[in-house]
């Protein structure tokens, strides 16, 4: 099913960042293969994926652009190139193929193909009932998905924009999160609730919401945020296979990222963070789009002589305190860069969690850079000011490492 896109001239703007965590995991003897799993469930051999080199290979940008990299790198590597939304679709399609209970429901997912083309072509292949076009009734179609999940189906509920899921908050909080508990374990709710969120390009306040912070307190759900085509596909598959309700946060601006991903089937671990760039001086924790702002800032920082360690936390609930903790024990300084609001955001929870667990290892207070606590304005310049930008990250690291 994997098709190879001949990316002539259009090069990847990202490195394939399939990192093994063998260096960090050796402490407790955890196998490196927990990061990537082959289709048969066999453990991965450490030969094919190696930790990419360090500073010399970082050519990242905040959003996908046509950067120049040597043409030779695209043609001869294994795997196939695709965009993030295609990676999501591939993961979704593979899971629908594999398990007949997997179905999709959402607005315009069927005939229209999905507002961000994530479900394009699926309705023709699997039929209208399995890829269900719902009316604009978030509360009830989320409830419907949850009710269907109670009987054993595995629906994927798409919110056209995460902000619309506020209308379904009651269903997500009370029914999705709590039913497994209040029924004493009788019912499981294996739904995946996914959709794009985050600040886009001048979409206005109501369409630029970051709901990670609103959902994070709900007991019983898991939250993950994808940021690259590789982890998008892996997390999508993992979320579908998980028996817990999972909220998968995508980002409006990241859908057109291009990356080369493996041809073989792989599923990622939902609760694991991704080591983007190992380093020594400071730990930068980030997720979703801010990862790219951080990597851009990292370029500048490296030129200035700093060695930041960048971790994409990916799992927003629960936090992967193992990876994060090991990193803090090494660098003793933490900077959190997020797109969430400052008040009660993911960064706030993460700060609290780190302080509780790793206080003794810190040489400086934790710094948290988040979006401003304002509704996202329409004007482009103001919108840029709402979100954390690379120069601010550089300044923060310099202050932290003083």
């Amino acid at each position, binding site marked *: 099913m994997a098709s190879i896109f001949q990316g002539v001239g259009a090069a990847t703007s990202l490195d394939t960042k399939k990192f093994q965590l063998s260096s960090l995991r050796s402490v407790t003897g955890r196998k490196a293969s927990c990061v990537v799993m082959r289709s048969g469930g066999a453990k991965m051999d450490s030969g094919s994926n190696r930790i990419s080199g360090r500073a010399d290979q970082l050519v990242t940008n905040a959003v996908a652009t046509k950067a120049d990299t040597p043409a030779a790198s695209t043609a001869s590597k294994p795997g196939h190139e695709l965009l993030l939304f295609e990676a999501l679709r591939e993961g979704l399609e593979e899971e629908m193929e594999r398990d007949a209970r997997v179905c999709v429901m959402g607005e315009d997912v069927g005939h229209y193909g999905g507002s961000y083309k994530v479900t394009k072509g699926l309705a023709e292949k699997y039929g209208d009932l399995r890829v269900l076009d719902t009316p604009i009734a978030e509360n009830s179609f989320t409830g419907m998905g*949850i009710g269907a999940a109670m009987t054993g189906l595995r629906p994927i509920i798409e919110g056209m924009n995460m902000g619309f899921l506020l209308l379904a908050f009651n269903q997500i909080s009370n029914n999705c999160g709590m039913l497994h508990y209040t029924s004493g374990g009788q019912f499981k709710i294996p739904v995946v609730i996914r959709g794009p969120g985050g600040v886009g390009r001048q979409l206005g306040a109501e369409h630029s919401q970051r709901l990670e912070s609103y959902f994070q307190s709900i007991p019983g759900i898991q939250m993950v945020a994808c940021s690259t085509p590789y982890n998008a596909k892996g997390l999508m598959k993992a979320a579908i296979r998980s028996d817990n309700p999972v909220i998968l946060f995508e980002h409006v601006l990241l859908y057109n990222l291009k990356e080369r991903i493996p041809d073989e089937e792989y599923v990622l671990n939902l609760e694991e963070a991704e080591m983007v760039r190992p380093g020594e001086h400071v730990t930068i924790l980030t997720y979703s789009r801010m990862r790219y702002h951080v990597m851009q800032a990292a370029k500048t920082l490296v030129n200035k002589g700093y060695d930041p360690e960048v971790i994409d936390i990916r799992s927003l609930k629960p936090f992967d305190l193992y990876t994060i*903790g090991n990193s803090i024990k090494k660098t003793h300084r933490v900077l959190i860069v997020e797109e969430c609001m400052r008040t009660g955001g993911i960064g706030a929870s993460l700060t609290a969690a780190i302080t509780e667990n790793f206080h003794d290892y810190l040489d400086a207070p934790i710094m948290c850079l988040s979006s401003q606590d304002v509704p996202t304005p329409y004007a482009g310049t103001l919108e840029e000011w709402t979100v954390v930008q690379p120069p601010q990250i550089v300044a923060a690291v310099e202050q932290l490492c003083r």
Partner: protein
Amino acid sequence: MALARRSSNLLKPLSTASSSSFLHRRPFSTDDTTTITVETSVPFTGHNCEPPSRSVDTTPKELMSFFTDMALMRRMEIAADSLYKSKLIRGFCHLYDGQEAVCIGMEAAITKKDCIITAYRDHCIFLGRGGTLLESFAELMGRQAGCSRGKGGSMHFYKKDACFFGGHGIVGAQVPLGCGLAFAQKYRKEDHVTFAMYGDGAANQGQLFEALNMAALWDLPAILVCENNHYGMGTAEWRAAKSPAYYKRGDYVPGLKVDGMDAFAVKQACKFAKEHALKNGPIILEMDTYRYHGHSMSDPGSTYRTRDEISGVRQERDPIERLRKLILAHDLATEKELKDIEKQARKEVDEAIAQAKESPMPDESELFTNVYRKGFGVESFGADRKELRATLP
């Protein structure tokens, strides 16, 4: 009450209710073969559909079982009342006495593979689905032997193997869930239906109409049952709804108004609805019923309605009394035997309460169980969770 005594294939000679010369007859006839035809108290009113006939076929066995089950349910609710007052049940407790005919009639018309989902007045429906008294009382008292292991409480009774999906506290939120159950039934091409029950208060929720629209759009086998007990907590229906004809609220979806205090009317309506839903998609049933208790135990139930009204309904429309008169009229049992059944019910309830009281409270470790379901490389570190790594499937 107009009771037509047209019986076909009657094995026993016709007799009047006052006859006492048949004392040698065995009561409790588990007689399944005799058909007794009963007429419902009032005819059905249909909206966009042809209402079913008023004549309902039943057997002595069914009549007796109706009586026995309803007596048990009534006793359970009254016992729950006194348990609440003695502070063994805490929090919210919504009692169903007066409305028993709805769940009894429904159960008689469907199988255990048809799904039922309801709101928080769920104790008797749980019993009707096959739940035991012990599980009910233990759950009400928060003990381990409860159906949800003591972690749900009065509003969260579930029984998965009998397709009883609860038990929901938020008004109206169970109806989209019910349409989801119907969706799954259609997805799997099963020949079963879903009964999504809600009250007259919940009938004004927007998500109901959203769910109804979707159910009608995709012909889902969903039957929406409005248990109209005329009061949404303290607000009478005419003060909350512009159009209290809830069976008509579906507009393009057909509806049926049923006397919810008559178990046979309910049975007939549910049978009709099931046939309809499997062929044509959703239908709304409005059960005209009444609750004797207040909305919950913290509501005396008399500030917004008169005691005369309550006792009036109890005298004229009580479902158990109606059955008693029917049974006596058909000479299926004597007064004494019926009283014995009620005594037996009381005894069973008392035993179950005693047993439930002995069940322990949940362990402290139960606080963290069932939050997530294990699977797929779950591992966590730090203060967040305490689970160990699980193996991949």
